[in-house]
C-alpha cells in the first residue's frame, strides 16, 4: 500500500508547481491553468486523507471543490476572453487599470 506521505509529497509538489507558475508566468491562460493545478493538488490531499481516515467527508469536499473550480475557471476564462477581445491584452502586467 502506498503510504500517505507519498500522496502528500505529490500534492505539495503539484501545489508548488502551480503557485510558482502562477507567480512567474505572465500569460493569463497559463495562470488560469496554474490555478487549476493548485486546486487539483489540494483535491489530491483531500482524497488521500479521506481514504486514510476512512471518512467520506474529504471526498465529498473534493466534489464541491471541483464544482467551484469549474465555475471559477469559467468566469476566469470569460474575463480573459473579454480582455483579449476588447483590449488585445493577454499579459498580466498590462492589466494595471485598477492600481491604487
Amino acid at each position, binding site marked *: 500500500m502506498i503510504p500517505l506521505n507519498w500522496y502528500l509529497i505529490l500534492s505539495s509538489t503539484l501545489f508548488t508547481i502551480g503557485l510558482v507558475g502562477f*507567480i512567474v508566468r*505572465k500569460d493569463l491562460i497559463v*495562470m488560469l491553468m496554474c490555478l487549476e493545478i493548485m486546486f487539483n493538488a489540494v483535491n489530491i490531499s483531500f482524497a488521500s486523507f479521506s481514504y486514510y481516515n476512512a471518512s467520506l467527508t474529504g471526498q465529498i469536499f473534493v466534489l464541491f471543490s471541483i464544482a467551484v473550480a469549474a465555475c471559477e475557471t469559467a468566469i476566469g476564462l470569460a474575463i480573459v476572453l473579454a480582455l483579449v477581445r476588447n483590449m488585445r491584452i493577454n499579459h*498580466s502586467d498590462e*492589466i494595471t487599470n*485598477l492600481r*491604487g
Partner: protein
Amino acid sequence: MDERYYILILLFPLAGFLFNIIVGRFIRPKWTSWVGVMSIFGSAIVSMFAIFDVMSGKTIEYNVYTWILSQDLKINFGYLIDQLTAVMLFVVCFVGWLIHIYSVGYMHGDPGYPRYFAYLNLFVFSMLMLVMGNNLVQLYFGWEAVGLCSYFLIGFWYEKKSAADAGKKAFIVNRVGDFGFALGIFLLFVSVYALNYSEVFHKIPFLQGKTINILGWDVDLITLIALLLFCGAVGKSAQIPLYVWLPDAMEGPTPVSALIHAATMVTAGVFMVARLNPLYGLSDTALAVVGIIGGITSLFAATIGLVQRDMKRIIAYSTISQIGYMFVACGVAAYGAGVFHLYTHAFFKALLFLCAGSVMHAMSGELDIYKMGGLRRKMPVTYITFLIAALTISGVPGLSGFFSKDEILWFAFSSGKPYGKFLWAIGTITATLTAFYTFRILFVAFHGKFRGSVEDFKHVHESPLIMTIPLVVLAIGSVLVGYFSVPHFLEPIVGKVSVMANYAQERFVMIISIIAGISGIMIAWYMYIVKPQLPERLAKTFQGIYKVLWNKYYVDEAYSFLFVKPTIWFADKFIERFTDIRIIEGIVNGIPKLCYNAGLWARRIHKGYLQQYAIFMIIGICIFILILLSR
C-alpha cells in the same frame, strides 16, 4: 374650585406662548395680541379663585406627577399656593395682564408682534412656575426661564446692536448669580436629601451648628447654603455687585421693562428669600449680608439715579434701589414687609414705566428728559398717573408706597439687629433721594417749557385708550393696594417680627420717613421749578461728584476692565489661537489628514500587478500558518 384645576394658572400662558410661537405668524396680528392678553386673563381669573381659597384659610399643595425619580432624588411636579404665593399670583397675573393690554397698543405695527406676545406669555408662565412650584427644582426652573425670557425680550429688537448686547449682558450677569444659586440647591440637597419645601423646612433645623470644610476653613453649613442661594437673588434682583444688567435692560420695549421691573424677574430674589425664610432665619450672618447688601444697593442706585437724563434709566435705578429696600426688610427678618413692598412696588413701578412708555410713544422714542418739558398739557392722563406713581414711590402718606416703606423702615429701626439702625438711616436717606429723582423727572419732563422744536411739540399727543386705561387702573391700584396689610396676611408663613421699641419710637420713625419723602419732593420742586438754573450751577460746583455719578461710579468701565477685557483677551490670544486652532481644529482636520496620508502611503504597494498581489497573499498566509504552528 377643585385644587387640581389650579394648574390652569400655569397652562394658560403656556398655551398662549405655544399658540403664538407656532401659528402666530400666519394669523392677523390683532388675534395674536388678544390670544396673549386673554391667556393671562385666564390665569388671573383662576388665580383669583386660588387667592380666595387661601384667604379662607386653606393652603393648597398638589402634586401633579413625579417629574424626576432616581434613588434618593424624587422631584414632584406640583404646586403650593399659600399666602406668599397668593400675593405673588396677584401681582404677576394682574400687573402682568395690564402690561399685556398696554402692549397691544404700544407694540402696534411692530413686525415682531406675534413673537413679542409669545415671549411675554412665556415670561409670565416662567414667573408663575417660579412662585407656584412646591420644590426648589421648580423654583430653579422658573428662575432660569425668566432669565431666558428676559434675554429674548431685552434683545427683542435684535437688529440693534445695543439691544442685542444688553440682552447678552442680562443673560450672562444672571448666569453668574445662578451659578451660586445652583450650588446652593446642590448643597441643600446633599445636606437634607430633600427638595420639597415642606420637607426641607422640616429638616433644616437639624443642620444647625453643622459645619462644612472648604479649603481648610470650617464654614457654617446653613450660612453657606443661604449665601449661595442669595448669590442667585443678587443676580436676578439686580443688587450690588450684579446689578449692571438692569439699567441696560432698557433696550427692550418699554412694557417689557415694566414686566421685568414690576411683576416678574427682579422680584424673584425677594420672593425666594421670603419663601426660604426658615433657612435664612437660622443664620444671622446670612441675614446681615442680605440686609447690608440691600441697604448699600438702595443708596448706591439712588445716588446714580439723581443725575441721569434718560427717563427709563432713572426709573431702572429706582427699581434697583427699591429692591434693595425689600432686601433690607428681609435682612431684618421682616419678610412680610419685604413682600409688602414688592407688592406695592409692582404697581407703582409698572405705572412709572408704562407712563415712560407713553411719553416715548408721544415723543417718537425720545427718552432724554431734558428734551421734553411741559408735557402735562398735552398728555393729561399720563401726567396725572405719573404724578400718582411719583407720590406713591415717594412715600406720601395715604398712598400704598408709604405703608410698605414705613413698614420696612420701622422694622429696620426696631428689629434689634446690630445693623438695624444703620439700615434705617440708609433707608431714610434713600427715601429722600427717591422722592427727589422721581419728581425731577416729573418737573423736568411734564412741567416748564418744551425744550424741543415746535414741530415736535405739535406731534406730542396723548396715547390711545388701550394704553391709558391700564395706566389709570394701575394708578388706582397704586393708591389702594397698600390698604391690604400683606405683612399681617403673611404671618402664618413668615412669622411675626419681634419688635424692640415702643409706640413713641414708631411715631418718630413714621414722621421722619414722611419728612424724608416730602423734603425730597420739595428739593426737587425748588431746584427744577423755582430755580431751574440751580442744578446746572450745582453740577459745575461739584463737578467731580457729578461726573462720578453721571458715569455710574464707573462700575461698567471697571467690570469691562476687570472681566470683559481680560476674557476677550484670553479668548483671543489663548482660546482662539491655541485651543481653537491647535486643539479643536487640529483634531477635526487632523483625522482626515491622517487617513489621507495613510492612504497615500498604502497606495504605493498597490501597483495593480496581479502576481504581486498573489505574492502578498502567500506571504500573509505563510505568516498565519507560522503563527498557528508556533502556538
